């Protein structure tokens, strides 16, 4: 990184030569207030709160979008700047409903924090609150345009990071609002439910559909066996809701908390992930070795990605692994195998999944294949944020909970299942088992570095005893396009396929940075959660799915072989072309 010397309020700092004044101020330990800027996004200077002075220049500039110039001294705080910032915040508040107490973002709202910091005790201007209905059309997120501050983060995420273009600015001037393009409902829009809009919204204008009530009702209901599974990425993020550091591994505490909340059985989606590896890995090996079916095989664990593919790239359907996601497999096994083992009527099981993801709420109803047990295999999906609230509501001292273990027989998991929560992890887990299936022996070093890391697209060639497997892992939908285009091009021209196996996760960083995870996720937080999962994997005694004794057991007792007819019945699904716009 080339650095230049600039001054922040007279204090010299070596700033990134290509960075902004905002970045430089951070290095100098000076906090400039922001509302529209977000570390994940290219700053675009909408809110007008981060204005600063350049010494000797009469005009104020936006710290977020103005690049540093060597030698300049930036005044980030003085009474005049603070007064203007306060006026701008007051203006924003004058168009914002004062409903903090009942807002989804109460105490987690960036605007609320600004109002606190700027000592705003009243809104001096006449208020203009828009009169627009909430968009509750999807299972995943609720869009409340009335609370929107038009910062544009959601649209920037949706367009520039996710390449979905479901959200756009509509109308002009005071009527400007963020809404699905063409002013349709979210459900009718190209929205893939990834929830990154909600994760990036500074206020309560887009948020996950809160379904904690359903959980409370289920544990209260008589004769209901509440069975809960937790996704890999939850264990390194939930602690943040209780003031713990990002990446803190709290698996045992979550099991304990869930039991305190009234769960009758507690499982781990990591088991489902191990099962997915068996199915998806076998499916791949079959295609790869016997050249049956279309390569590359594309992973299918991520429901947002699946939705995207069905809308934008339906020609990829033959490439899609038919394996269900770990969550759906886990749910199906809870209502069949587990029910059998415990002599439970599947009808009495209420299957709950704690997920880092809003699209998972949509996935459980995406097709009739999700009811393979005869009823919904998963009845309810709660995000990490919702679980955090449930635990707080129950007054559980989370940090001091003693670790507990998951229930058997579908609770034990390997490190391979754990790393499903991070980009490259599904690929790595699948390759650990594929290696065994192809080479007939165990992979010595199970850490497959080419698919680790934060690059948007990671490519590598894995050598399995002289056979080269060309793999790629992409995360953040904008990064997926290039790979899909390469595949299309190869199909069109008949040139050799560039890949054999491709992993896709819709969210940048993977599920650890999913749309349902605790707020304030940035690259630092992503790195910490990722490290948490890799640490958990490294500490695992078993690191390959095919070595999980409970997995071996379930095949032996229930499913037969991977990709057997029975496995297909419960663990596989179908895809269909869907219109980008429903209407």
């Amino acid at each position: 990184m080339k650095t230049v010397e600039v001054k922040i309020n007279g204090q010299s700092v070596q700033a990134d030569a290509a960075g902004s004044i905002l970045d430089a101020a951070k290095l100098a330990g000076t906090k400039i207030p922001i509302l529209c800027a977000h570390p994940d996004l290219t700053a675009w200077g909408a809110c007008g709160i981060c204005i600063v002075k350049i010494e000797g220049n009469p005009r104020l500039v936006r710290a977020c979008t103005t690049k540093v110039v060597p030698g300049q001294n930036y005044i980030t705080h003085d009474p005049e700047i603070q007064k203007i910032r306060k006026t701008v915040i007051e203006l924003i508040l004058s168009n914002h409903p004062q409903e903090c107490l009942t807002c989804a973002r109460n105490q987690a709202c960036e605007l609320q924090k600004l109002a606190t910091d700027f000592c705003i005790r009243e809104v001096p201007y006449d208020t203009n609150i828009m009169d627009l209905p909430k968009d509750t059309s999807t299972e995943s997120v609720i869009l409340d345009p009335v609370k929107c501050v038009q910062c544009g983060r959601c649209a920037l995420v949706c367009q520039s990071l996710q390449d979905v273009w479901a959200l756009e600015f509509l109308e002009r001037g005071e009527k400007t609002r963020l809404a699905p393009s063409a002013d349709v409902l979210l459900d009718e829009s190209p929205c893939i439910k990834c929830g990154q809009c909600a994760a990036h919204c500074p206020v309560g204008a887009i948020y996950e559909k809160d379904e904690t009530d359903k959980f409370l009702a289920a544990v209260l209901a008589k004769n209901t066996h509440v069975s809960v599974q937790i996704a890999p990425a939850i264990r390194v993020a939930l602690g943040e809701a209780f003031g713990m550091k990002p990446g803190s591994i709290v698996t045992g505490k979550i099991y304990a908390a869930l039991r305190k909340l009234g769960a009758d059985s507690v499982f781990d989606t990591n088991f489902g992930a191990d099962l997915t590896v068996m199915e998806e890995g076998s499916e791949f090996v079959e295609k790869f070795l016997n050249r049956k079916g279309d390569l590359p095989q594309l992973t299918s664990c991520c429901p947002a990605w699946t939705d995207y593919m069905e809308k934008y790239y339906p020609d990829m359907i033959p490439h899609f692994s038919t394996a269900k996601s770990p969550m759906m497999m886990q749910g199906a096994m809870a209502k069949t195998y587990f029910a059998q083992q415990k002599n439970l009527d599947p009808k009495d099981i209420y299957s709950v999944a704690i997920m880092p993801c809003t699209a998972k709420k949509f996935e459980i109803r995406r097709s009739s294949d999700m009811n393979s047990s005869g009823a919904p295999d998963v009845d309810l999906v709660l995000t990490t944020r919702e679980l955090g609230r449930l635990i707080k509501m129950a007054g559980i001292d989370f940090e001091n909970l003693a670790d507990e273990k998951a229930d058997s027989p579908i609770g034990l998991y390997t490190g391979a299942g754990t790393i499903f929560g991070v980009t490259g992890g599904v690929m790595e887990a699948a390759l650990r088992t594929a290696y065994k299936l192809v080479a007939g022996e165990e992979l010595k070093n199970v850490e497959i570095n080419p698919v680790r890391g934060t690059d948007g697209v990671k490519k590598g060639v894995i050598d399995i005893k002289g056979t080269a497997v060309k793999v790629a892992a992409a995360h953040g939908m904008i990064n997926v396009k290039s790979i899909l285009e390469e595949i299309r091009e190869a199909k069109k021209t008949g040139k050799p396929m560039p890949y054999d196996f491709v992993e896709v996760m819709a969210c940048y960083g993977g599920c650890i940075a999913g749309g349902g995870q605790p707020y304030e996720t940035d690259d630092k937080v992503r790195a910490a959660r990722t490290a948490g999962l890799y640490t958990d994997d490294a500490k695992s005694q078993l690191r390959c799915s095919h070595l999980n004794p409970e997995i071996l057991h379930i095949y032996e007792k229930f499913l037969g072989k991977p990709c057997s007819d029975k496995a297909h019945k419960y663990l596989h699904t179908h895809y269909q072309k869907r219109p980008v716009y429903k209407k």
Partner: protein
Amino acid sequence: MKNFILVCAGTACESSKADDIYKNFLAEIEKHGLKDDAQVIKTGCFGFCEKGPIVKILPDEAFYVEVKPSDAKEMVEEHIIKGRFVKRLLYAGDEVGDKENFEASDIQFYKKQYRIALRNCGFIDAENIEEYIARDGYEALAKCIFEMTPDQVIEELKVSGLRGRGGAGFPTWMKWNFAKNAEADQKYILCNADEGDPGAYMDRSILEGDPNSVLEAMAIAGYAVGASKGIIYIRAEYPLAIHRLGIAINQSYERGLIGQNIFGSKFNFDIEVRLGAGAFVCGEETALIKSIEGNRGMPTPKPPFPAIEGLWGKPTIINNVETFANVPAIILKGGKWHTTIGTKGSPGTKVFALTGKINNSGLVEVPMGTTLRDVVFDIGGGIRDNKKFLAVQTGGPSGGVITEKDLDTPIDFDSLVAMGSMMGSGGMIVMNEDDCIIDVAKFYMDFCVEESCGKCSPCRIGTKKLYQYLDKISKGSAVEEDIKKMEDISNAMKLASLCELGKTAANPVLSTLNHFKDEYLKHIVDKKCRSGKCKDLVSFVVNDKCIGCTACKRKCPVDCISGEKKELHVIDQTKCIKCGECVAACKFKAIDKI
């Protein structure tokens, strides 16, 4: 000698049936077999829109005004056949008296004008490139290509001191020089024809009357900075300008004046037209670029400036129509010549669109440094109906009001800013004593509320709040502290908005507050509106002159006047809608407006 009948075919005259006039002339000429003796030509705007449609017959210099289609017959029979002026249609201002033979430049409206940008408007047929060529058209481009290096072209512009006519007056040569020095495989020349200030129409008129001057200048710019592509961004609501641009582009391509190997040289330059949907903000250069790129027209932060990183991320020159129209003249006559016109800081001329409560509305091009008094009272012929001058709004919604005390200040880019206004694109709206300054500020603020792109919060929310305060003031429900709030909001908008539109959107308030604080206070404290425009602050009251004739009672549209015949009438203030019909109906001055 052959007669040339020039019929104004600008948008204003066209809407007064200039096209029918043109067709009737053709028919009359045909009918009388005068094809060899007279030629009818559709020209661009003469500028003197107040008196349109205008028909000028050469070589007699007969300046006919307010011509109707039915007049063509008489004009051909009298003027063309018999050689007699049609007196009833001749312009007849005091300055020309009864004279028939006078030059257009004798007319008060034209006397102090100096035309560079409008040099061909009203003289040539915009749809015939030969006429442009006959008036030295494309000679400047040839001169650049064959006799000048790109640096010399830019140097000539530097010497000329030409500043951008679209708003802030940035030196044109500097923009060109930035783009020239930027390394890139492709550069673009954009012509900003997204004229959006209320009342301004100089760019439209230039494109309607002399489109080739802009094409030529764009090619010159392309040559100077090394760009091979030009795009004219024009609002779709300018159909005539778009039509004539299309013709001009086709004709210039046919003659090899635009396109590949211009004049047989190695220089290539293509021009295309892109239509905008008419958003005011798309006149802001970064928003304009976004719009051309197919995105929502919203400004982006500067830097990077378009000259370095513009359309599709490439170095891009954006000049407005009027700026371009000046360029060929400067190249041909030299930068030095240009500095002999206008002021030191702002050489050359500026076109103003003079409208409002003025006798001669129209387009006027005057040397920079002309005083506002000259423009309003000499060229504009003073205030309509002999009313008292109140103020002039210059610079459109982003500008400000200029009052009596500044009428004698020579106007140029810098003096206007010093007066708290700006040049803008040159809109000039004259107000008289019948106007209420709150009402004027409300009008402009309403425009800003509608036209804010909605991106940045100070502008999006601030404009609306300011409008609401103005509205309260006009309705008598504001309090004195509201002025302080308006100032706070305005200040935040000025300093924290992203683009120039937002930074200046509070000007209608700041400028009127600065010059007319007493009027604000009169509205707020006394609940009175001097002009009576703010209807909520006006009441109509019957005085004792009333004889009970019931005329007012019968006229009142809401039946709020009561009283028997020959008895004093009473107006029910709760029902009165302040339409003033009763005052007009009363023959005895028995109703006071207070």
